């Protein structure tokens, strides 16, 4: 158990180092920011002076080491556009993204579990098929399109919910519904197929031979087993969700991290891009560490290995 968690921690640290290296290289090789920052009439001397001020005239390995050293100290550079620490800018935007992702994920996950359990306890094939059909239909519509549809219906036609922005609770409804409905479909199918497989398994039959009721069988035995593979997927997926909200943040004009990164890329504000990508990677690593801990807590076989 100790070794398992230690190896996961080391894995997380290695992932972060890899991400740091990746963003460092990516930004260095995607065009010269100095040219973009300076006015068109800037002289070669101006450019050289600017490059020197930013440390861009040093050799790549030296830049890399300097970058790593300050990154470890929490210094991810100063925004080229705003003149403030890049990390501060990123951290200001982080809550909006995390909020949206976590709320949508939690709602989606719990509704999915509830629906899967209800369907399994009822034992009704028809209900099961109906739920799965709706889920598949929802999954086949891309989120941005589904979001725009909701905006058309609830904001434009009925005028009951705000279309964009992040203000009071009502501004959360459409973005959260858009993402959560997608999550419901995903987890419902995962849990559903785990149930399906388990239904024919030996130990479920043996449990039924004890005379236990269906709710008890599903909640006490099948669900904990079904969740094991699902939470692994959930961890990765939540990470992807946080990093992948860019499109929806643009659709809903949501002041999150994704939009910040997109804006910063087009402005060649590479310290902010670096800090943003790094934060997303951090979130990814932390979530997956949590998943590993939860997994170990749920599965005795992992705990004892």
């Amino acid at each position, binding site marked *: 158990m100790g070794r398992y968690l230690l190896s996961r921690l080391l894995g997380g640290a290695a992932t972060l180092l890899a991400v740091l290296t990746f963003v460092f290289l990516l930004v260095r090789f995607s065009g010269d920011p100095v040219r973009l920052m300076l006015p068109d009439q800037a002289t070669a001397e101006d450019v050289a002076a600017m490059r020197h001020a930013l440390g861009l005239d040093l050799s790549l390995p030296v830049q890399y080491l300097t970058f790593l050293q300050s990154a470890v100290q929490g210094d991810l550079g100063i925004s080229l556009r705003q003149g403030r620490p890049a990390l501060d800018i990123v951290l200001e935007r982080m809550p909006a993204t995390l909020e949206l992702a976590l709320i949508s994920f939690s709602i989606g996950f719990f509704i999915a579990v509830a629906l899967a359990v209800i369907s399994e306890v009822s034992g009704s094939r028809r209900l099961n098929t109906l739920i799965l059909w709706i889920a598949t239909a929802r999954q086949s519509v891309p989120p941005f399109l589904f979001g725009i549809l909701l905006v058309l219906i609830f904001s434009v036609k009925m005028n009951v919910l705000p279309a964009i922005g992040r203000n009071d609770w009502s501004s959360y409804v459409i973005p959260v519904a858009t993402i959560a409905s997608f999550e419901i479909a995903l987890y419902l199918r995962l849990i559903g197929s785990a149930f399906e497989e388990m*239904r024919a*398994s*030996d*130990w479920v039959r*043996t449990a039924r*031979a*004890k005379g236990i009721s269906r709710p*008890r069988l599903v909640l006490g035995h099948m669900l904990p*087993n079904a969740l094991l593979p699902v939470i692994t997927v959930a961890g990765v997926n939540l990470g992807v969700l946080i990093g992948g909200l860019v499109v929806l943040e643009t659709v809903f004009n949501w002041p999150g991290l994704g939009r910040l990164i997109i804006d910063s890329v087009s402005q060649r504000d590479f310290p902010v891009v670096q800090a943003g990508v790094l934060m997303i990677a951090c979130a990814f690593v932390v979530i997956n560490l949590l998943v590993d801990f939860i997994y170990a807590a749920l599965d005795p076989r992992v705990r*004892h290995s």
Partner: protein
Amino acid sequence: MSSASIAPLLSIRDLHIEFDTPHGPVSAVRGINLDLAPAQTVAVVGESGSGKSTMAAAVNGLLAGNGRVTSGQILFEGRDLVQASEAELRRIRGSGIGLVPQDPMSNLNPIQRVGTQIAEVLKVHGQASGRAAHARAVDLLDMVGINDPARRARQYPHELSGGMRQRVLIAIGLACRPRLLIADEPTSALDVTVQKVILDELQSLTAEMGTAVILITHDLPLASERCDEALVMFRGDMIERGPAARVMQAPQSEYTRRLIDAAPTLDAPRLVRSPTTASPGTPGSQRVLAELVQARKEYPGAARLFGRAAPFVAVEGMNLKIPRGQTVAVVGESGSGKSTTAKMLLRTEQVTTGDIIFDGLAVTRLRRKRLHDFRRRVQPVFQNPYGSLDARWTVGASIEEPLCIHRIGTPATRQRKVEEALDAVALPRDLASRLPAELSGGQRQRVAIARALVLDPDLVVLDEAVSALDVIVQAQILKLLADLQEKLGLSYLFISHDLAVVRQIAHHVYVMQHGRIVEHGETEALFAAPQQEYTRQLLAAIPGVTPLVRAGAQKAPSLRPPQTETPATTDVPADPRHRSATARTA
């Protein structure tokens, strides 16, 4: 023994069961009748696919989703379970009718403590709650013979051995002291020595509680030893019913007789001749084909936070000689190192120390091209014929593949070799275009043997190659192996846990325990006078065998020599519809 005088506990009347399949309904059980008095035991005997487990599942109301009782009654204490509601069935399951399932590895919830799983049955039937239920669970573990039950109750299934898990399942089945216990092949997945202990335990507990037992088994000798009545089933039909001892000694039906004859016993005639008298004892070195010399195999220990646990030694100090044209058997319980021995010889596992000699040359460290050439001469056949063939490849393609890998022949000559291999294992040539799913288990194992033979190997390693087969098919495959050896001069390394089978086929026997050879010798000598206590234990554990029978002093008059002709009925392709239906009930 007559049940007429007492009101029966369970009475099955003309039971018919069908499974719905995409090809329409398939009948799985037809017209079963059974009366079981309280505290009586009945064995339901049959091969796989005979419907015996389906019938038992119907008693419990636990047929697979696509199965249903089409007619007949199952009267339990006068109540018809076929008509009973799910709630009524729930009250009976676990409290009135207990179940001990077949495979201890797959029948417990893997992430729940075993004590909790036992306590649950007491809780749902209102027999105990909270702490009292857990205390009772510990008592039950003690009752089924588990040491340190309080600690075991807190453990998870993966921390327990197969035998212990089966005891946990027995504890669950008997927790509420049911009037009826359905034991569905309760020991088939266990080692022979453990089998006997578990069956003894089950027998004494049910006798003590006055529980009636339906014992589902494929093993007729075992049934006759343990049960009052026996019911023989074949493909859904009841073939024979009567007192178990009578069915065993004076079977009325042809099928029962075949079943009895095919069951390997220690007094059945052997299929191979003893090694020639010219070479008694250990064979001369020029006649030895393969040899393990002081072979040792260790696996790295489990990883710890710092460093590793001590390595696990699977095989140690192994010396084994396989003479040309003869069969050497390695017997022992699971975990004794016999499969590791096979893998070392096949060079799929590298020995840690020691040497492997093949045809006079050390092959221990061969690599690349020369290892590839060695592989042509040593071929394996594995236990599970369902798992060892690619389901998407035709039989012909599977048999041809080794030839392609070793670049032997042209497509035309390869085709001929495939046909010859099919001839050799007595399969029709047109089977080459079929898929494994269209074949019976016995046919598949013949295909696996054909695939091994197509390269003209010198040595065939048979790792539990007949263990997964029904007795009648098993007898046929053993006969085939003996014939092929005679004809082609093959050598076999025969890995098995079944001493009765080994006695029929092997020239030399090595007995393994805890990774070491404890005893070896010529088959007849070793069986007649085992020197080691462990060997004697293994022999004594074989069902249907008493020391008297072994000595040949008291031979049951009805026992006939095994039929040498291939009975056509059991080795025909199983109807795929039938199988898909029964597979779901398994």
